[in-house]
């Protein structure tokens, strides 16, 4: 008796069911609800089809436009910084030295900490009366202390700092994996030809690690676009909506205010922006990710 090599759908079925019910259906349903007026706190109004009204509202909603801008700013600042810091850490971790495994574990700590915990931690460090941040800046002069999370100009920056602290290590790991597949023979050959360390970095390391850098950048872009926990804990979108990123605004509309219809419209907008990002991502890297012909 020989086992069949015919595709066997039974193995795949449980995963398909979960993905269909809890991922695919909800996305389609978000699209449908975005054309309805549906308010949880006013159930007697029912579900009313209102065509493109929610979309008109969204396009003219100043808070929504500000949210989009805030999310974009957040992504544009945090991801390059995280990838650069990650590259620096990866270059160190790629050297061989005693305690390298230990340092690699240490670098993972910020990544492993629950985001909610790191949010509370940074909120404490940025405290306006006894936060370490203020003490480092101003010492004993407590009258000069800032309240970074309550200042419109500083709150978003504070959240960026918290995100950079937490996520640089993830970028470092992706980049490290890219560094480790560079064959050492290339460096040896370059040394024989008399290349200096900086020449080796510019002409060997950088071109060969570029795919990994790009991958880290895109992973971080997609993830930074979803930022929620940090905002929820540190600022609740304030002060004056300056940290009200898209994901938080959508949450507030749908769940705090119960406006499921309008919230779904925001969800669809967020979805379309991330779909665009994913398509870019898959086109740039997709074939390589599935790569049957090796090519690390």
């Amino acid at each position: 008796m020989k086992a069949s090599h015919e595709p066997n759908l039974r193995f795949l079925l449980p995963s398909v069911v979960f993905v269909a019910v809890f991922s695919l259906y909800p996305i389609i349903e978000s699209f449908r609800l975005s054309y309805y007026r549906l308010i949880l706190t006013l159930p007697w109004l029912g579900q009313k089809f209102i065509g493109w009204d929610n979309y008109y509202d969204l396009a003219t909603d100043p808070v929504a436009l500000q949210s989009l801008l805030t999310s974009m700013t957040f992504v544009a600042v945090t991801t390059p910084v995280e990838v650069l810091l990650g590259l620096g850490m990866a270059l160190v971790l790629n050297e061989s030295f005693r305690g390298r495994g230990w340092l690699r574990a240490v670098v993972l700590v910020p990544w492993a900490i629950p985001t909610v915990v790191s949010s509370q931690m940074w909120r404490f460090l940025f405290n306006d009366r006894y936060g370490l941040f203020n003490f480092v800046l101003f010492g004993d002069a407590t009258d000069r202390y800032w309240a970074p999370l309550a200042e419109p100009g500083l709150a978003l920056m504070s959240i960026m700092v918290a995100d950079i602290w937490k996520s640089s290590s993830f970028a470092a790991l992706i980049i490290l994996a890219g560094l480790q597949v560079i064959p050492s023979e290339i460096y040896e050959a370059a040394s024989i030809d008399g290349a200096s360390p900086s020449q080796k970095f510019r002409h060997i390391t950088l071109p060969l690690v570029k795919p990994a850098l790009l991958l880290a950048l895109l992973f971080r872009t997609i993830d930074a676009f979803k930022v929620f926990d940090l905002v929820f804990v540190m600022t609740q979108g304030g002060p004056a909506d300056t940290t009200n990123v898209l994901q938080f605004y959508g949450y507030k509309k749908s769940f705090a205010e119960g406006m499921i219809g309008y919230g779904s419209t925001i969800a669809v907008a967020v979805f379309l922006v991330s779909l665009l990002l994913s398509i870019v991502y898959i086109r740039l890297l997709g074939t390589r990710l599935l790569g049957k012909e090796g090519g690390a």
Partner: protein
Amino acid sequence: MKRVSFLGAIVAIAAFSLLPFLWFVLTSWKSANEISAIPPVLVPSFHWDHYRAAVEQHGLLRYIGNSAVVAGATTAVSVGIAALAAYALARFNFRWGRAYLMLLLAFSMFPQIAIAGPVWRLLSWLGWLNSYHGVVAAYISLSLPFAIWVLTTFFKELPRDIEEAAFIDGCSRWQALRMVVLPLAAPGLFTAAILVFIHAWNEFFFALIILTYPAVQTLPVGIALFPGEYTMPWGEIAAASTIATLPLVALTLVFQRRIVQGLSAGAVKG
């Protein structure tokens, strides 16, 4: 000189990664006066009061229990389902196999808000809000894409010969999977399990919208919604945070090799 600057880089990386959290851990052992002291007190007087208060007044143990149940159940079911799917995707040539993997990749990138409203309404309709199975169901679908991707790469690397030998010995596909392939794939399954567990233990957004009763809330929700409007109970928050993080830091330190391998498996190696 070069050695000194390299050593400096190592120290800087370690300090950057550890010091902020270490400061928070130290805070959990400080008295209220030490917490608000300027200049800051470096060495705490090792009070355990905040831990006691977090347990007795804020139900820390209940949050830990809820998190353990939710993250544990998510890990077990998700890795089981993902292993079946990944095995099929690695061994059979499905017409839509590639498209399915792409779809999963796309799902893993979408912001949670894109599905949050309908997921909430679905769970509400099922009567699954404020239940373990409700939040676990949502978590399974969140973690499946990642788990399937990681496991598919692991299964692809397993040699087919051993399975073929098992078929010749009269094993069915299912028997071969259970008795030959899964034991060989144990390291991969373990890696996927650690990563899914960490993700489920840390997840906040869906926990926040699905679990509104304190009796079923998980640790991240408890820590995020820690009561205190005007004076924050920092000592107790730090104590609860330390306890919420300890299992993860332990897992990370012990299994860092596997975690790094798992994170980069889906990403760089392909």
